[in-house]
């Protein structure tokens, strides 16, 4: 039995440390894990940030998201020098923060730009894992081509940048259900990841010829055009087919629309038809 007088630390009542220790013992282990808190806080923050009728709670959502990020950083497992760890977490925070902003942004243009920032973070994470080629390819193909195509389609289809449906989701009940489902799904994934704790280290049979190789690009090219040559050819054919398909779809669709408009005797202007079809 500890005498009460010796346990009064920092103005706390004497029973506080004992109570804390007791609480930590009694609570199940998952309740004190930072990752669980990260998922819970992140889900609440996403619920507040996703488009909804009011704008109240946006700041609270951002604050909770930051708290979730801090909890996530606290749950990090890998050790290493401070530089390495901080580089990793800065890149990861950038990726996740920009991804959240892309998902919750009210304007499709801003969504695309936030997604591009998130891709920059992902490219950094690729480089962090010795995947230099993939990092550069992500920037060039995704941020350089796909995001620009997104912006191009936004420009064609939604020149005002945002519309009523950007500020709406699927009614009041759908969003909590969606976020809860996704959080449970993520919890399942992370619970499976926990099993890694007990797993034996990997059999490092091929280390040296793997991604840690010094002559990275040459080794990657060897693999790509040696072992995976057929797959490269198939991917090239697929790209060609997609290109032809996209062009054919647009040309064919335009002819079809022109035919429909002639039958109706209306103007071929899409916005005119939209004004007719949309309820005020």
């Amino acid at each position, binding site marked *: 039995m500890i005498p009460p007088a010796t346990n009064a630390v920092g103005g706390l009542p004497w029973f506080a440390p004992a109570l804390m220790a007791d609480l930590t013992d009694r609570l199940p282990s998952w309740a004190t894990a930072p990752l669980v808190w990260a998922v819970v806080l992140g889900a609440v923050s996403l619920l507040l940030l996703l488009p909804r009728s009011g704008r109240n709670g946006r700041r609270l959502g951002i604050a909770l998201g930051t708290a979730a990020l801090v909890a996530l950083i606290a749950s990090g497992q890998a050790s290493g020098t401070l530089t390495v760890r901080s580089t990793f977490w800065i890149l990861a925070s950038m990726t996740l923060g920009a991804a959240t902003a892309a998902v919750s942004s009210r304007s499709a243009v801003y969504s695309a730009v936030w997604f591009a920032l998130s891709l920059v973070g992902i490219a950094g994470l*690729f480089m962090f*894992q010795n995947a230099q080629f*993939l990092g550069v390819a992500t920037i060039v193909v995704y941020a350089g081509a796909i995001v620009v195509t997104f912006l191009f389609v936004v420009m064609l289809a939604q020149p005002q940048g945002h519309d009523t449906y950007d500020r709406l989701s*699927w009614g009041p009940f759908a969003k909590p259900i969606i976020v809860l489902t*996704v959080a449970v799904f993520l919890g399942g994934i992370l619970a499976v*990841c926990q099993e*890694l704790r007990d797993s034996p280290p990997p059999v490092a049979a091929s280390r040296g010829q793997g991604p840690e190789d010094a002559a990275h690009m040459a080794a990657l090219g060897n693999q790509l055009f040696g072992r995976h040559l057929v797959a490269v050819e198939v991917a090239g054919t697929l790209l060609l087919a997609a290109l032809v398909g996209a062009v054919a779809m647009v040309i064919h669709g335009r002819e079809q629309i022109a035919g429909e408009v002639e039958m109706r005797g209306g103007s071929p202007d899409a916005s005119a038809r939209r004004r007719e079809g949309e309820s005020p």
Partner: protein
Amino acid sequence: MTEATAQLYDFLVIGGILFALGLAGLLARRNMIVMFLCVEMMLQGVSLSLVAWGRYHGDWGGQMLVVFMIAVAACEAAIGLALILMLFHHSGTLDITFWQESREEGQPAYVDSQVPEERDEDRVWPRLTLAGLQPEVDEEAQQHRSRV
């Protein structure tokens, strides 16, 4: 947990969260372009974990898969955006609820209960700051230049 496992674990967590964010966006958003963007985000989450597994096992399998994923994603973006453009030409809107016309028979239609007002700050666009000097305009040259 060994160091290699710990690194793999961190990357799997980040990849999983990215995938979940994309999934939430896909289900909750209604703009077709943003939904498509969320699918790309899910792909990124998967490729992050694939690269992490490749590094963990010290072989090229993960990175090779991601190379082909990028190629397929490019195809998918081309076809998907062409489809979205086609749907837009048919309906005049990017709202996915327009296509509930094709729902099952007897199902009630989804109707928006309350449409939020557009606020003033939503209409503000970022402005480019002026850069450089404005060139001096020579009035005489402007007037006497032969306009061919």
